[in-house]
């Protein structure tokens, strides 16, 4: 967090059908609808999140991710980061306050992998959902489905990982927690963080720019991941793989798809990192084990199914 970038703030996801998508993200994942706007976008949050929203759904004729945003500590840090990005040669777009309801001004930029990111300092603080700020209970009643705890990270596919790394590490102050190297020493996957989590954002090398692999939500326990798997079956939701464990991060996970084909993950556990930790390295020859620790081989979909 050395440059003031604090944590993931929100992700805007395109969906083919809003009603189907909303049912998936609320009834199954357990996110809570907090608002809608006149563009038809729907705002959602997970119950432990303190700001008004972390997921925005937008109906469009192709699914995928519009952008992911990080919250920075304050306006001063935002101004400095903006200057640093411009000095680094990154084109920065201004998004005025209120373009997303109850969110302050954002700056938006596209990194060489082809993905759009945003930084912002202010969003309406609504507190955790269903519990009080003082003497809070352990959890609120009335949560649905998987009862997602928080929006945790995204995994994105695109080219030019090295140039993307430079922006995240050298300009935005991220730290490389884990990587996959090919035999020539090229980084084909990079897991970057501004926190103690193994990733706040991750990239895997792919020829086509700007592809979305998954948005991930945190659960507390392995039991919760197994329960999520039960719910995926009960609702006849499209499953990808799991429950299983990743080698990278060692998180326990399940992958599935929203009704528009965007991949979601819910997971628990995972390693921690501090800025003095050296990156954990996986060799590309061990990619199967790095991704799916139990099967030790990739399913075809992991590399090819993207939105």
């Amino acid at each position, binding site marked *: 967090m050395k440059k003031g970038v604090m944590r993931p703030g929100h992700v805007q996801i395109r969906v*083919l*059908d809003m009603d189907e998508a909303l049912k998936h993200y609320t009834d199954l994942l357990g996110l809570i609808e907090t608002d809608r706007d006149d563009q038809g976008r729907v705002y959602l949050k997970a119950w432990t999140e303190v700001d008004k929203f972390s997921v925005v759904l937008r109906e469009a*004729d*192709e*699914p*995928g991710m519009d952008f992911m945003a990080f919250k920075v500590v304050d306006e001063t840090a935002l101004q400095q980061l903006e200057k640093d990005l411009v000095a680094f040669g990154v084109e920065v777009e201004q998004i005025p306050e209120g373009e997303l309801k109850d969110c302050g001004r954002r700056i938006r930029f596209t990194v060489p992998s082809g993905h759009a990111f945003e930084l912002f300092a202010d969003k309406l603080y609504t507190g955790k959902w269903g519990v009080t700020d003082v003497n809070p209970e352990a959890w609120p009643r009335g949560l649905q489905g998987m009862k997602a705890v928080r929006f945790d990270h995204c995994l994105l*596919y695109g080219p030019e990982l090295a140039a993307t790394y430079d922006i995240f590490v050298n300009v935005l102050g991220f730290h490389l927690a884990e990587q*996959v190297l*090919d035999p*020539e020493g*090229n980084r*084909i*996957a990079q897991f970057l963080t501004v926190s103690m989590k193994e990733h706040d954002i991750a990239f*895997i*090398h*792919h*020829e*086509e720019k700007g*592809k979305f692999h998954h948005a991930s939500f945190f659960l507390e326990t392995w039991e919760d991941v197994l329960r999520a798997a039960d719910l995926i079956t009960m609702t006849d939701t*499209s499953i990808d793989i799991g429950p299983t464990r990743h080698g990278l991060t060692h998180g326990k996970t399940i992958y599935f*798809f*929203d*009704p*528009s*084909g*965007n*991949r979601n993950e819910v997971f628990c556990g995972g390693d921690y990192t501090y800025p003095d930790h050296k990156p954990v390295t996986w060799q*590309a020859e061990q*990619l199967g084990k790095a991704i799916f620790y139990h099967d030790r081989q990739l399913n*075809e*979909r992991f*590399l*090819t*199914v*993207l*939105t």
Partner: protein
Amino acid sequence: MVQTFRICEQHSGRSFICEPGQSVLKAMEQQGLRCVPVGCRGGGCGLCKVRVLAGDYECGKMSRVHIPPDALAKGEVLACRIYPQSDLAIECQPQQAVGQVTK
């Protein structure tokens, strides 16, 4: 008795039964076949693209990047988003070299 439809995939020569209201891809998966590649099952990833050579069907929403309007006019569809209304002859698209995690 419910009327069912027979779906014939030309490359593999495989055929399977599809019930009304069921997507072609789902019917294929249920019968343990793999003649069309299975991805997201939501019309988003494009993996299950096929061309319909004969027969009638209804379409659900499909990603426009994978099925632009001119492709749709040529009978190119996503098998996870078509619901047959008669027997169908379908053909898998030639598999392009899809993304590899290599430089």
